């Protein structure tokens, strides 16, 4: 966005200024410094402060939203400027305090460092935009995902479906009224952890659900499994396409990785 203030501002002030959109106060300062070839380690604080304030006023006149960050920076600049203006006690020459501009320079340089990276990324972006990969959605019914060494939630879901299918008859057979049993996630998580640990090594997904008899049991057990995975207490692995998913304690996997 480039706004030419000539029309609007000329009659009153006699000034003409080209206003750009800035990414923030640091961006504005850097552009001022770079366009005027100022030595960043020796910023002429008085004139830079004046110009900065002039920019702010121009932005306000344009009714642009001047974010509060700009005002904070203005205050910082004025504070640094005022410290230069204060008479200095005739201190011994060696004992120079830190330059009040140091912190500002550090921030500007830090910011500019990442601006360089941003430019670099921008270049990569441009180059990559010239390349196209296939984006056609694969038909999930006839083309299963390419075997992935990491198990996704979808894999877990289909494994759950298989378990639920097997249990179908058991659930529907007896018709009696049973008082609802309260199953909590916490309970199931503890149970799952115990079962995984008891298995010694890794335990197949289906076997993990062998003891579960009712639908709520299985659902809660599955939730517990997800929660344990989220907490990195257990790990799921699948060695081959459509293969069994194995659950093992996270610690064991770490040890295995260390051993390798």
């Amino acid at each position, binding site marked *: 966005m480039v706004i030419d203030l000539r029309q609007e501002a*000329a009659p009153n002030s*006699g*000034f003409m*200024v*080209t206003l750009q959109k800035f*990414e*923030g*106060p*640091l*961006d504005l300062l850097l552009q*001022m410094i*770079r366009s*005027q*070839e*100022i*030595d*960043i380690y*020796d910023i*002429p604080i*008085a*004139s830079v402060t004046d*110009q900065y304030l*002039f920019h702010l006023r121009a932005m306000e006149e344009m009714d642009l939203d001047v*974010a509060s*960050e700009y005002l904070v920076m203005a205050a910082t600049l004025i504070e640094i400027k005022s410290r*230069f*203006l204060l008479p*200095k006690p005739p201190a011994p020459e060696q004992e*120079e305090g830190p330059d009040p501009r140091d912190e500002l320079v550090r*921030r500007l*340089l*830090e*910011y*500019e*460092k*990442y*601006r*360089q*990276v*941003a*430019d*670099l*990324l921008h270049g*990569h*972006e441009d*180059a*990559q*935009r*010239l*390349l*196209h*990969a*296939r984006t*056609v959605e*694969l038909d999930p019914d006839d*083309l299963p995902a*390419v*075997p992935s*060494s990491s198990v996704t939630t979808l894999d877990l879901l289909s494994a759950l479906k298989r378990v639920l299918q097997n249990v179908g008859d058991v659930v529907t057979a007896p018709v009696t009224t049973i008082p609802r049993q309260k199953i909590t996630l916490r309970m199931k998580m503890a149970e799952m952890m115990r079962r995984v640990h008891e298995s010694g090594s890794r335990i197949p997904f289906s076997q993990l659900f062998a003891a579960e008899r009712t639908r709520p049991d299985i659902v809660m057990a599955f939730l517990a499994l997800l929660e344990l995975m989220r907490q990195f207490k257990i790990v799921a692995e699948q060695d081959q*396409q459509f293969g069994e998913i194995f659950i093992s304690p996270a610690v064991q996997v770490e040890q295995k990785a260390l051993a390798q």
Partner: protein
Amino acid sequence: MTDSSEIRRAVECLLFVSGAPLGTRDLALALECEEASVVSAAEELAARDPEVSGLRVQQVAGGWQMVTRPEYALAVARFVGKRAQKLSKAALEALAILAYNQPSTQPEIEAIRGVDSSGVLKSLIERNLVKEAGRRDGPGRPILYETTDGFLVYFGLNSLDDLPDQSVLESMLAETQSRVEERADEQFPASTDGNDSVSGGQEQAQGVEETLHISEGFEPEVVER
């Protein structure tokens, strides 16, 4: 599968079908062959003569991906139409900071950028370039963010190591600075009155006059009519 040229053709097939980058291990599992033969097959494909095919294989996000050659970008674009919007300057800045300091919190990113970054982070998450990475212990338990594999794919990087080292960045910075100073020197040759204005203990005491003096030379972006 053991024959190397057969593996190469099969790798090509899988990369074609996938579209998204495929890891070496996934390819090896599918082809029932050694990972090493997958790597050499993919490398062969990546190095293939541009005359042979309009497609090429690139190594990205730790995997392999088949993409069209940049030479045919225009032709493809005419067919595909508009691509997603390019990232804003603010978004690139936030990604740059995050790439070197991950995981990181929103205030940490804002401290470097000097400006509110909540909107930027939100849109980066929506575009799957950034994701949440748990919370930092401590007051407020702020959310941590990190870049995704999608970030690597988007910028065609194989890993974060493809980005220049911090030390390289510092020297790039120093280079920019010295270029600026050189140009400034050309414009304003060192004063001939023998007054060394750079060093010396009196520099601080003279700070104000000096800075004012220097500033006279620079024209602000304001032109008086």
